[in-house]
């Protein structure tokens, strides 16, 4: 790790944007070193400039109005900050490779994976067709493709998210770079896949002596993989140092806050009534009762082939008692969102029953829907997409109040104000449109809209997945407060197990459309009875670097489902 001089040395890098007349500084004199074979974690919220920093290293500024106004980038002693476009092109890929957050949009959909890998090899290493193919197959095997000769001629859409990310890494490695910049490489992936990709990066580092800059907002990821950590905020590098030093004794207040908001920190006790009561004495009536629910969607099928169906939820039975906080966890594709939608009558049921407050959705649909509309509400994943962009927050809230005749027309404005108070938004937000809000503020507005119907049940579908960690912690705290102060039943769907653990009394683990395990959060997380749950929990990157990451691929659970 100690070389004569660092492989990459950035000195006082400054980037400004020409925004109107006054230039704004986006990167403010950032100086950073990357040693040979080192993994450097670059953490910070969105907008802190961490991605911009990495892009400016290789001269890929996202807009013409952005300019590097100062500083030097020394790659192995040679300043590449002022290099010409041609010189930079030779550096990009060949010496500095990049992988991105969303492999789907960064892979060419109409080009075979193998060809995308060979392209770089041929361009940068000048190998012929056959040699390039051999080299590509070798790299594919190295990044964990199970059958490279066959997968060589597959297209991006034929792979899962995790395999696509492996393909991206293979493309980056194809040019044999010295430095790999990984921009949020695992953010779009499930925890178990994330663990595999991180393990892969560690292996590659070891095998090739690669230096890696890992951009992430998840300190758990950093703790598990990196040697050193650099913390960025508002375009400034505020703290940099050895991983253990930063995690155990952060000097800056912001770093301390960032660490404190990590959900794998010791869980707070979930709020609400004591969880034992439901086991000892069953309540007279569940608020939501799901009985052997199946939801199937038609997929594909053409003139000659028979129409097939995909079973998103296959035989789920679940009871949710009034006032309970239930977390539903599982990987993507496990059917948790479909279950949530079915619970609210938003998707047709194929089989089985959903009963809300005694009304059965399959028997008395209209009546049940009416009850659901006025007593249940949903909070969505994408905070921007869940609010009508043309309406102000106030108009959105007022409309709900007016349609449901919750308050007389004259009192609507006052009630809108109260709702904004409840979600801790300033009342002036009533006049603003979603576009001018941050993700966290939008999500609060979305929660306010859910609260406007004065619901007994709130279903939150991955509602923090799109937010930064510190904002996530705030939204979770808001939910905790709402649950504690109002007569609210909360169904909280997430793939982030640590958040569910800290918020929910009871947790339901789903896999392939079935419930794998169910029980009080404490019990499930401390002593999971199913291997699947145990693997899922082990895959969470812990902020404690001494608790190793489990990169083992998940096997299917032995028992399918468990009676509720």
């Amino acid at each position, binding site marked *: 790790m100690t070389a004569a001089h660092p492989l990459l040395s950035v000195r006082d890098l400054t980037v400004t944007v020409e925004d109107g007349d006054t230039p704004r500084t986006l990167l403010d004199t950032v100086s950073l070193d990357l040693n040979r074979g080192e993994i450097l974690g670059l953490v910070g919220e969105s907008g802190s400039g961490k991605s911009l920093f990495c892009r400016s290293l290789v001269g890929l500024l996202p807009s013409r109005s952005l300019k590097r106004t100062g500083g030097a980038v020394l790659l192995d002693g040679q300043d590449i900050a002022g290099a010409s476009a041609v010189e930079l092109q030779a550096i990009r890929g060949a010496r500095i490779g990049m992988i991105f957050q969303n492999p789907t949009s960064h892979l060419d959909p109409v080009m075979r994976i193998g060809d995308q890998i060979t392209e770089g090899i041929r361009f940068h290493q000048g190998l012929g067709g056959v040699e390039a193919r051999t080299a590509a197959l070798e790299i594919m095997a190295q990044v964990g493709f199970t059958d490279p000769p066959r997968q060589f001629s597959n297209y991006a859409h034929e792979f899962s998210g995790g395999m696509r990310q492996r393909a991206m890494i293979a493309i980056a490695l194809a040019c044999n770079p010295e430095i790999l910049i990984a921009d949020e490489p695992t953010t779009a992936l499930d925890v178990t896949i994330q663990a595999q990709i991180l393990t892969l990066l560690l292996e590659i580092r070891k095998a090739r002596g690669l230096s890696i800059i890992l951009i992430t907002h998840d300190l758990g990821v950093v703790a598990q993989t990196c040697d050193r950590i650099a913390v960025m905020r508002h375009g400034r590098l505020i703290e940099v140092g050895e991983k253990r030093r930063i995690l155990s004794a952060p000097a800056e207040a912001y770093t301390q806050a960032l660490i404190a908001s990590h959900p794998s920190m010791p869980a707070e006790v979930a709020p609400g009534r004591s969880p034992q009561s439901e086991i000892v004495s069953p309540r007279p009536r569940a608020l939501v009762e799901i009985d052997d629910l199946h939801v199937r969607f038609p997929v594909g099928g053409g003139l000659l082939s028979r129409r097939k169906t995909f079973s998103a939820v296959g035989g789920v039975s679940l009871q949710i008692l009034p006032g309970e906080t239930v977390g539903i966890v599982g990987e993507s594709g496990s059917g948790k969102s479909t279950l949530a939608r079915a619970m609210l009558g938003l998707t047709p049921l194929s089989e089985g029953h959903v009963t809300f407050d005694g009304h059965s959705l399959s028997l008395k649909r209209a009546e049940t829907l009416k009850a659901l509309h006025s007593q*249940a*509400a949903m909070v969505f994943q994408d905070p921007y997409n869940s*609010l009508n962009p043309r309406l102000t927050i106030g108009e959105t809230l007022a409309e709900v109040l007016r349609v449901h005749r919750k308050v007389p027309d004259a009192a609507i404005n006052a009630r809108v104000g109260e709702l904004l108070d409840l979600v801790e938004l300033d009342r002036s937000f009533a006049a603003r449109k979603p576009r001018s809000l941050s993700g966290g503020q939008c999500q609060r507005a979305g929660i306010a809209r859910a609260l406007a119907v004065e619901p007994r049940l709130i279903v939150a579908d991955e509602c923090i997945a799109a937010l930064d960690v510190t904002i996530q912690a705030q939204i979770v705290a808001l939910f905790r407060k709402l649950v504690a102060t109002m007569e609210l039943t909360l169904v909280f769907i997430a793939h982030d197990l640590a958040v569910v653990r800290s918020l929910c009394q009871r947790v339901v683990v789903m896999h392939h459309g079935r419930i794998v395990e169910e029980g009080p959060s404490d019990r499930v997380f401390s002593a999971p009875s199913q291997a699947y749950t145990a693997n899922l929990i082990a895959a969470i990157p812990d902020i404690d670097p001494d608790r190793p990451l489990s990169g083992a691929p998940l096997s299917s659970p032995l028992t399918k489902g468990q009676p509720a």
Partner: protein
Amino acid sequence: MSAAALKSRPATLVTGLAILGAFVLVALLAPLIAPYDPIYQDAAARLQPPSFAHPFGTDNFGRDILSRVLYGARIDLQIALIGVAFPLVIGTVIGAFAGFFGGLIDTALMRLIDIILAFPFLVLMLSIIAILGPGLTSFYIAMALVGWVSYARLIRAQILVLKNSDYAMAAVSLGFSRLRILFRHLLPNAVAGSLVFSMSDAVLVLLSGAAISYLGLGVQPPMAEWGVMVAEGQSFVTQAWWITLFPGLSIVVLAFGFSMIGDALGELMGVNE
């Protein structure tokens, strides 16, 4: 979005609006500012080149081209406005219902659109006008009958996407009525694209209005309309270029103004992003 785009946006919009405004002003003030009666024939001053007395020259009947161009603005703006407004409204409503309700209505309407699109645009226009008889009213009716399909397709595609957005789902889960969801939540977000398109459509309408008049099926002589004037000047183009040039230029400049506004609207509403 770059700062350059932010800066250039008002410039495009201002230029477009200025051009359109100038034409509207000219159309309104035509009787006041036109030096001659647009249909007055002065046999003594036939085919005169541009001069002080006739800045744009005169045509083969001795009519003042400048006055005819100024009066022509009235007809051509009317063509652009009515020729766009009816298809826009009809197409938006049909497209919105087709996209939102789907099923049989959607299938039927989409097949109808396929049929209309299967005919070349001008051929269909000419056949309808031929049935109704030449004249501007027939042109407007034909335009409404044929022109709505593009708007219907645009809106339908938008609604199909927006229907699956989370805010539509939220509205459903809150028990809002279907018409409320369609008209208050989906349609306002769907129209941006068609409004932008309507500006470039105005150019097309203007040109097809001119083409139809050129073929003698739209505006009837001696009424001043740019397309008619270009048609009339055609046989004299080697001796008297000014007869076709000035009305032709007017069409080009007005069309340019419309497309500038369309571009600016597109950026303002985030359609191109």
